């Protein structure tokens, strides 16, 4: 029997025992490296992606919502993230604190995350506890209770998280300022954690409106990876989610970012001993053809100790202590970020005197074959490392489904990397690493910190 027919029959068997109008539909399969992700849907629009993996008696369960900070409005920034915190509170059937207690009693590992394009909730449990997770996640998708006391307390927790990650963190503060400066109209302008004034101003009504708008089965993707019985799981999902109503999710109205025509620079003073430089160039969206070559080029330039700029700035030049780069993996064009920390006695000017000629060189000349081979091998290693746990696989599947609509795209990217030539990298450099699209954040010591202290590890 063809494999697809097996899943059609499983869905038919599940629907035959349905006591409601909720039905499961088999919607197809996706290659995920050597494995296969099976796609089902419920009548109310919920997407379900399943990957059977019996290498350990555990199951990883991710619920992705297609809502992040890009869906917020000025004055209400940070709402998606605050809401993520509130999702661990009371529901109509569970008292405050019971959600976490039930999960911990089951030995669960659980967490959640919010970023510009999405929010996810994650539980990994011993396989016999899967029914509880299905019940808890479906319950809080629709039955959350938002009271003033909980919103007030959680706002304080998030304000403290902001102090930890941004206000008292040099790199966090610089990163926030980079996006604020590089984006003037697109919602990537504001940080996912939100501006402090906005965080402190939220009301339960704000949260309720957000919940009703974005938390619905037709705006969610459930990913399950692990040791489960497919038919039994579909029955559980049908019974738990099947009656939840779909919502009208407003169309994405994030304003496109106009082209940046002039370089931008902002200088900030911080209580730190050394200068730091954060540079951003407007880059491709994750789904753009230029994303893969720019990712490989990043490895050539900044990936590890053998990369061109690590060698030039950290090892040979002894100008930097820390040097990193990243191409943002957003659904709209984000930034190609470079972060560099100067050593004591070195300056941002010293860094830039090496950095920009190196970027100009990859616009002018192709990288060597050996550099290309090394960069591709590093990226392959990184992908394989992300697949070592059930949770890692579920995260990859859910991320690519949520941002690109393709749960197997991680492996397609790997194939794309393999096909890339040195000319492709040069083309990407010429397109994206252009001076007029550059934003610089200069972090300089405010003088409150000495450079000659005696500190231990």
């Amino acid at each position, binding site marked *: 029997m063809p494999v697809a027919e097996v899943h059609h029959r499983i869905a038919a068997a599940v629907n035959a025992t349905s006591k409601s109008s909720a039905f499961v539909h088999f919607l197809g399969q996706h290659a995920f490296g050597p494995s296969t992700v099976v796609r089902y849907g419920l009548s109310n629009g919920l997407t379900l992606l399943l990957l059977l993996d019996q290498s350990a008696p555990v199951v990883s369960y991710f619920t992705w919502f297609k809502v992040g900070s890009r869906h917020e409005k000025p004055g209400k920034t940070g709402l998606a993230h605050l809401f993520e915190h509130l999702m661990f509170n009371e529901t109509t059937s569970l008292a405050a604190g019971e959600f976490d207690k039930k999960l*911990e009693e089951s*030995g669960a590992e659980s967490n959640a995350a919010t970023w510009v394009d999405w929010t996810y909730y994650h539980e990994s449990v011993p396989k016999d506890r899967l029914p509880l997770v299905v019940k808890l996640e479906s319950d809080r998708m629709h039955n959350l209770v938002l009271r003033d006391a909980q919103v007030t307390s959680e706002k304080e927790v998030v304000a*403290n998280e902001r102090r930890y990650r941004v206000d008292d963190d040099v790199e966090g503060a610089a990163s926030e300022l980079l996006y604020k400066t590089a984006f003037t109209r697109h919602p990537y302008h504001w940080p996912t954690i939100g501006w402090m004034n906005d965080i402190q101003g939220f009301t339960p009504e704000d949260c309720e409106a957000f919940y009703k708008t974005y938390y619905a089965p037709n705006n969610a993707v459930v990913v399950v990876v692990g040791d489960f019985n497919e038919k039994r799981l579909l029955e559980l999902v049908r019974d738990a989610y099947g009656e939840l109503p779909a919502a009208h999710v407003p169309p994405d109205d994030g304003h496109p970012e106009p082209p940046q025509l002039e370089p931008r620079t902002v200088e900030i003073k911080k209580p730190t*001993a050394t200068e730091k430089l954060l540079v951003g160039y407007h880059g491709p969206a994750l789904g753009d053809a230029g994303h893969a070559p720019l990712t490989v080029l990043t490895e050539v330039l900044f990936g*590890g100790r053998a990369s061109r700029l690590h060698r030039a700035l950290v*090892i040979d030049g*002894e100008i930097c202590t820390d040097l990193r780069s990243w191409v943002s993996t957003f659904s709209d064009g984000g930034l190609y970020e470079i972060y560099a920390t100067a050593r004591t006695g070195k300056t941002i000017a010293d860094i830039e005197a090496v950095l920009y000629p190196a970027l100009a060189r990859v616009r002018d000349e192709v990288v060597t074959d050996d550099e290309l081979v090394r960069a591709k091998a590093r990226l392959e290693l990184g992908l394989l490392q992300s697949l*070592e746990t059930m949770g890692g696989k579920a995260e990859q599947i859910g991320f690519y489904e949520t941002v690109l609509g393709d749960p197997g795209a991680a492996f397609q990217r790997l194939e794309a990397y393999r096909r890339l030539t040195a000319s492709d990298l040069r083309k990407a450099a010429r397109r994206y690493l252009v001076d007029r699209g550059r934003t610089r954040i200069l972090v300089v010591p405010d003088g409150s910190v000495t450079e000659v202290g005696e*500190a*231990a590890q």
Partner: protein
Amino acid sequence: MSTEALSPTTTKEKRGAKKTDAVTRFALLGGGSVHVAESHAVPLVSITIAFRSGSSSDPAGKEGASKLAFRMLRRGSRTHTAKEIEDELDRLGAELSTEVSVSSSALHGQVIERNLGGFINLLATLMAEPTFPEDEYERLRRETLAEIVEARDNDRSLAQQAFRREVWKGHAYARSTTGSNKTLAALTLDDVRAAYRTHFVQGNVALGFSGDVETPRAVELAERLAEGLAKGPRVPDPVGEPGRIPGRRLVFVEKPERTQTQILIGGLGTSPHDADHVPLSVANAVFGGSFTSRLMREVRSKRGWSYGAYARLAVDKQRQAFSMWTFPAATDAPACIALELELLEAFVSKGIGPKELSFIKKFLGRSYAFDIDTAAKRLHQGLDVEVLGLPADYYSAYLAKLDAVTVAQANAAVKVRLSADDVLVVVVGTAAELDEKVRSSIPRLAEHKVVPFDREE
């Protein structure tokens, strides 16, 4: 976990052995051992080369020697220059890192399976034939000094350093693994070579392979790696049992412009050889080891004072520390410290209740599935037992020991091992605004000092 000891000459007999989730241990000639945990789910192989000794072997005044010795391995070997080593690692799709703690040390490697042979060839020369080039040594020393300056940007790290120095005052655990400006200036290349000779001997090593490798091949590769080392016995641990420092002490680490504080409160904790080690660990989990623990509930859920609130019992060869970690806004810090001390007093004097014990046993017992859900995790349990000299049944009998813990045992352990009177409080914050208020929040404070964050006393 099943273990068996076989001489290398008999390993071929195991080629047809059935693959299981078990970790298999083999003795190596020369006194070392190899542990193998197969998993063919992802084409990756992880290798750990662990040593039963760490920075406690550094002579007084030579702190940092062991860490430099390990880092120097990738700075030149008989067959490769530093640059060639980095290029080759990338070409192979491999990563290599070093870890040096007080009591043990290790090389951690990971490689795409098809390149395992090449990676072993490289590792063999790095381990057995390092050349310690003078220019590379000077470069590494400068790099380390720059990293020490950079680490001062991290407030949590500052709190941990101050806690280590003060809670172990007068004991070997107080010494720095990285070293300081002073000790790094005094170290010579001969000191670093001597540190290498101390650690890298056959009787001191335990190798581990996990992932996509057949056990017989792993054993052969381990033999090759170990054969290159000099003959020599296991390095004895020079660290003795630490003593309790009486009274309540406050160390305020002064750093300008902090909106938030980093707070560590604690003292002596547990030894893995204590008869009450598991009962104490269980009680600590009730107090601050989960998301629904007392500490998290009171500090975060009820008051929103800190994004995180945890209590931890570290494990090492000798008795390690008990510590509570929170990071409230500066304005909430005095009240948060007072609350934590009250909670600790109640914990020590009244212990935990039967419902709490029943709950935490379910959490710890069921979540144990995630301590062994990958081959790498199973492998590291085996290596921990060997390298840290843990009781042989430390992991294998854990679930049975957990199940046997009674309320009386847990509470007796808390009373004997922990103290609310002999505690150290470390605060990283801006002293001018907070120091007096923090002092007032600590009843019966016996000692107090303010330390600039960029200087060691």
